[in-house]
């Protein structure tokens, strides 16, 4: 992934990534990809947290 491999800092371009998801709005599994979000001109907010079944 080159120079943006880890510990991205603000101002850098985020490399494309994909994540498998559970999407509660559809009640189904799915996938999100930054490439698709960018193609749809979407702002993206990533909200990391340590673990399910704990407070967020």
């Amino acid at each position, binding site marked *: 992934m080159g120079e943006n491999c880890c510990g*991205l800092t603000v101002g850098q371009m985020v490399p494309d990534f994909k994540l498998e998801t559970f999407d509660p709005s559809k009640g189904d599994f799915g996938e999100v990809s930054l490439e698709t979000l960018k193609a749809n001109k979407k702002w993206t907010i990533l909200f*990391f947290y340590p673990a399910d079944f704990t407070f967020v």
Partner: protein
Amino acid sequence: MGAEVITVSTDTKFVHLAWQREEKMLENVKYPMGSDPTGKVSRMFGVYDEETGLALRGTFIISPEGKLLNSEVNYYNMGRNVDELMRKFKANLHLAKHTDEGCPSKWKEEGDKTLKPSAKMVGKVYEAYEGK
């Protein structure tokens, strides 16, 4: 709100499903729950804790062009405030349209005072901000 919010932990999508169905506090939460069991994406954002295999409480705002604009990481014991996040997100939307402006610390929403950095303002931020 005009952004795709994705929550991410190192749990699998199966655990996400189980938690979302079990926990009443999540009844009205409709954001896609991303699964990062290998920690690949968490590492990319510098929030992967190698000791525990968990992701720290990191919040990142990415523009539609794919540029990282905000980055905030809290340690395990501090939760995040949605108002703080919304302020940053709204400021990004404003600044994307008004590229010559800056949103000062007190900026909260559209219509609040912004600043236009210039030679005239050097040493005179107070006057520019207070309109004096």
